[in-house]
């Protein structure tokens, strides 16, 4: 059984097409991206007992909010701790465990809803589901980078785009299933959780069974590594633990954290913001459409920006995110005051594309700076920046808004200062990106270093 999951068992032979690998990664990421659509369950979950309307015994929205928060916390933790394990055991076992966790998270939550025990839902979707999210997110990334040394950004962009697209599948799927299963005695959530858990388990299992890793020193046919060396792309490798001793890791952590803080903060408020800035002209249904449009740009940006980064360079791509992003955030209040809805939407859409691009370009940036051998584990640890930003961004935006309203600022103008502060956050990100230099040679893996992932000393090393 263990041999079935081993790296040697999933090493591809010479005839294998590397284009089979992105769909394996997408089969996982399109499932776990459902997490972004969990809010569609909020309203039905507040009516489990009352069915047609919420009664005092029903769960409150504040109680339900913890499900998603727990999932994001466990995403960060499992990615950070599981990344090193992933590099040791390979992507198949990691994807399989992710499938088991994510699927069973739904099933346990179904039991929790059925028994009306919120702790079972916390344990199910929050803890188990969150672990599935974290392991599933990092598992195909380093494999893709190794299969596409010529287009690292595009390869990781394809997978991480799937995480953005997962919500677009998960939301209508959940709504359709709840509509199908609802009755006079049920809101249909239990059955929907069971079906979605099963569908996602099978799909992620297909990803796990089809993933292949390239043979040692494999290169695409006809491709030769660029003769002119780019000092921002190392040919050496830095161990996961050693990466934590470099300033580059913490600067990249800040780069991701600041980019995500700015984006996630305004994304959560987008619906309310457009309705308050264009009062009377934007209905709640139109605002929901606006959020959907932002999700599309978020997803598209994940693929396009990371693909562009293969030509622009990772550092230059982040310069664009931070410089253009800061400019766009600063322009949003003017567009709101001018009442120009189209330009407002366009600015927001561009901002969201760069927010998504920040997620998908970071694995390739890490591979450039730390080498490809341990990039999966290093990426896992860097994702704690995402978990941090997931808390920091919304808190910052909500606090700033409340503070301004308390100062007597009109609702429609309450977001202006917030947008300027978000622009300042991006300026900080620009400085962190500017400070990133190649890793000092002393951190590189030496020829005789023990390779704990393979459990051997590399050829020529000490016995």
């Amino acid at each position: 059984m263990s041999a079935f999951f081993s790296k040697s068992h999933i090493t591809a032979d010479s005839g294998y097409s590397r284009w089979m690998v992105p769909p394996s990664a997408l089969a996982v990421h399109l499932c776990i991206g459902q997490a972004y659509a969990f809010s569609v369950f909020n309203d039905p979950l507040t009516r489990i007992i009352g069915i047609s309307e919420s009664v005092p015994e029903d769960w409150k929205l504040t109680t339900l909010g913890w499900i998603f928060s727990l999932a994001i916390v466990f995403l960060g933790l499992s990615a950070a701790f599981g990344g090193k394990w992933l590099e040791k055991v390979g992507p198949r076992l990691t994807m399989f465990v992710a499938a088991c966790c994510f699927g069973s998270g739904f099933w346990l939550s179904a039991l929790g809803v059925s028994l009306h025990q919120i702790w079972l839902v916390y344990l199910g979707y929050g803890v188990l589901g969150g672990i599935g999210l974290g392991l599933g997110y990092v598992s195909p990334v380093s494999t893709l980078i190794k299969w596409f040394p010529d287009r690292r950004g595009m390869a990781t962009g394809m997978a991480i785009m799937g995480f953005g697209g997962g919500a677009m599948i998960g939301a209508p799927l959940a709504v359709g299933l709840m509509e199908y299963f609802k009755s006079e005695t049920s809101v249909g959530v239990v059955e929907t959780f069971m079906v979605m858990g099963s569908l996602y388990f099978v799909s992620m299992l297909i990803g796990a069974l089809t993933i292949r890793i390239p043979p040692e020193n494999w290169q695409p046919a006809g491709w030769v590594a660029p003769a002119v060396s780019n000092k921002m792309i190392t040919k050496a490798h830095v161990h996961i633990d050693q990466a934590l001793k470099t300033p580059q890791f913490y600067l990249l952590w800040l780069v991701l954290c600041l980019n995500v803080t700015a984006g996630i903060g305004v994304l959560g408020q987008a619906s309310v913001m457009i309705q308050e800035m264009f009062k009377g002209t934007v209905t709640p249904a139109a605002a929901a459409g606006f959020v959907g449009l932002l999700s599309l740009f978020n997803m598209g940006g994940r693929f396009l920006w990371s693909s562009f980064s293969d030509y622009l360079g990772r550092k230059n791509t982040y310069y664009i995110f931070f410089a253009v992003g800061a400019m766009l955030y600063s322009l949003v209040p003017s567009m709101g005051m001018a009442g120009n809805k189209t330009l407002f939407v366009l600015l927001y859409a561009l901002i969201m594309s760069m927010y998504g691009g920040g997620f998908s370009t970071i694995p390739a940036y890490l591979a450039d700076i730390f080498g490809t051998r341990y990039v999966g584990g290093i990426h896992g640890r860097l994702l704690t920046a995402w978990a941090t930003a997931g808390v920091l961004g919304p808190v910052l935006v909500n606090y700033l808004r409340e503070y301004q309203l308390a100062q007597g600022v009109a609702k429609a103008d309450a977001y202006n200062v917030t947008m300027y502060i978000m622009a300042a956050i991006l300026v900080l990100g620009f400085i962190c990106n500017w400070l990133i230099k190649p890793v000092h040679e002393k951190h590189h893996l030496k020829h005789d270093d023990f390779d704990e992932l393979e459990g051997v000393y590399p050829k020529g090393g000490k016995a």
Partner: protein
Amino acid sequence: MSKKPTSLIALIVFWLYVVLPLIWGVSATIKKALALFA
């Protein structure tokens, strides 16, 4: 593991398996987004 090259049909089928649900989700999102400009 067999050494024969990956078949084009397998490649197409596998890509359709992931792309078709994505197209369905994207079109549902676009329909919703149109309300913004209605």
